C-alpha cells in the first residue's frame, strides 16, 4: 500500500497549465528525488502534496486521505506531512526553540515541558542544541535550514517534503544540510526531495523522477536514470547538469 497516491493531477494558474497529468505512487520509507529544468512543475507538484497549492483536478491521497476531498480536514493531514522550504521560512520573532515547539504545543496541545525536551533532542540531532535560545537572524543559512528540518520533524510526520532545500545556501553550507537529510533517510523517513543536487539524488534516492513541461517524463532507480536515460529530454537535461 502506497503512502502517497497521485492520479491525474492537474494544476493551472489562471490559463497557464503547470501540471498536465501527473500519476505517481510513493511507498513508505521511500526516498524520491524530483529533478528537472526550472518551470517544469516540480515545486508545484510538491506543493500539491500538502495542498499549499489548490488542486485543479485529479486526486492526491496521503496515507489514505484524499486531500482533494473538501470534507477531509487538511490541517490534520498536514500534521503528518512536514515541509522544508528553499527560503527556510523560520519565524524571525521566535527563538529557535520556540520555532520548533510552536506547532506541537499549539496544534497538538503537547505539554510545554515535553515539547521542549523533544525539541532539544531534535536540535541535538541536527547539531544545533546550543543554538536553542538564539534567534533565526543570528544563524547562518545552513543552520537555519537545519532548524527548519527540526521544526518540521517536531510534529513526528510520516512524510517529509523538501523544496530545493539547498538552493539558497552558500556552497560550503550545502553539505551540512544534505548530511542531516541523509541521516533522516537512513532512519526510514519517507521523503520527496525536489533538488538540483544530482549527487544526493544518486546516492540517497531510491528513485528519481524527471519532470519536464508539466509531465513526469521518466522515473527510475538512480543508477538507471542517470546511467541509461530513455528519453531525449532526460538525456538533454542530464547532459547540461552532470
Amino acid at each position, binding site marked *: 500500500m502506497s503512502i502517497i497516491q497521485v492520479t491525474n493531477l492537474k494544476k493551472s494558474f489562471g490559463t497557464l497549465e503547470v501540471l498536465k497529468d501527473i500519476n505517481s505512487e510513493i511507498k513508505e520509507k521511500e526516498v524520491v528525488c524530483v529533478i528537472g529544468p526550472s518551470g517544469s512543475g516540480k515545486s508545484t507538484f510538491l506543493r500539491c502534496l500538502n495542498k499549499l497549492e489548490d488542486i485543479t483536478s485529479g486526486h492526491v491521497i496521503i496515507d489514505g486521505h484524499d486531500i482533494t476531498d473538501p470534507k477531509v480536514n487538511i*490541517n490534520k493531514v*498536514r500534521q503528518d506531512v512536514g515541509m522544508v522550504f528553499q527560503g527556510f521560512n523560520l*519565524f524571525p*520573532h521566535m527563538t529557535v526553540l520556540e520555532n520548533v515547539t510552536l506547532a506541537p504545543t499549539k496544534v497538538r496541545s503537547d505539554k510545554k515541558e515535553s515539547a521542549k525536551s523533544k525539541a532539544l533532542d531534535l536540535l541535538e540531532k541536527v547539531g544545533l542544541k546550543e543554538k536553542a535560545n538564539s534567534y533565526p*537572524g543570528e544563524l547562518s543559512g545552513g543552520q537555519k535550514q537545519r532548524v*527548519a528540518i527540526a521544526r*518540521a520533524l517536531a510534529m513526528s510526520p510520516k512524510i517529509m517534503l523538501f523544496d530545493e532545500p539547498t538552493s539558497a545556501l552558500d556552497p560550503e553550507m550545502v553539505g551540512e544540510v544534505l548530511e542531516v537529510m541523509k541521516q533522516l533517510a537512513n532512519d526510514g523517513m519517507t521523503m520527496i526531495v525536489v533538488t538540483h543536487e544530482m549527487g544526493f539524488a544518486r546516492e540517497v534516492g531510491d528513485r528519481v523522477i524527471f519532470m519536464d513541461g508539466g509531465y513526469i517524463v521518466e522515473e527510475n532507480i538512480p543508477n538507471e536514470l542517470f546511467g541509461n536515460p530513455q528519453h531525449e529530454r532526460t538525456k538533454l537535461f542530464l547532459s547540461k547538469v552532470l
Partner: protein
Amino acid sequence: MEAIVTALPYLLDGLQVTLYIFVTALILGLIIGLIMALFRLAPLKILNWIAKIYIDAIRGTPILVQLFFIYFGLNTLDWISLDKTTAGIITVGLNAGAYFAEIIRAGIQSIDKGQTEAARSLGLTSSQNMRYVVLPQAFRRMLPTFTNQSIISLKDTSLLSIIGIADLTQQGEVATATTFEAFKIWFAVGVIYFILIYLLSLLANFLERRFELR
C-alpha cells in the same frame, strides 16, 4: 501667572475628559480596525465589501461632519439616544478604526507569504497562523504608523468641544471666559496637549524597542 492658577483646575478637569475619551475611542478604534482589516483580507466577497464601504465612507468625509451626523443626525431617530460623550467616543473611535484597518491590513500583507506557508504546512489553522505568526510580526512593523494615527486621534478629540463636551479645549474656552487671558490660557492648553503627545511618543518608542525584530 495668576490667570494660569485660576484656570488650572478647569484645564485639569478638561484633561481628564480628553484622556477618558481618547483612551476609550482608541480601544474602540483598534477593535474595529482589526475586525475590518481581517474583513478586507477575508476570502468572502461580502466581508470585503463591508470593510471597503466603511473605510471609504470614513476616509471620504470630514470628521466634523461625522460628529454632527452621529450626534445630531442619529439622535433624531426615535430608537437612538446618544449622550454627548458617547457620540464623541463613537465618532473618534469609528474614525480611527478606518485608518487603523488600513494600517493593520498593510502590516499583515507586508509579512512574507513563506511565513504563512511554513505555519500552515505544520498544521496550524488559518487563525492560529494569524495569532502566533503573522500578527506579532506585523504589529512591530505597524507601530510607527500606529503612533501617528493615535496622535491624530488625540488631536481630533479637541473637535468634540463643538458639541459641548467639557474636554481640554472646551475647558480652555471656559477658562478664557473667566480670566479674559486668551494668550496665556491657549498657550497653556497647547502645552498640555504637547506634553500628552510627547508622552505618547515616548511610550511608542518604548514599545518599538520592546518588540524589536531580531
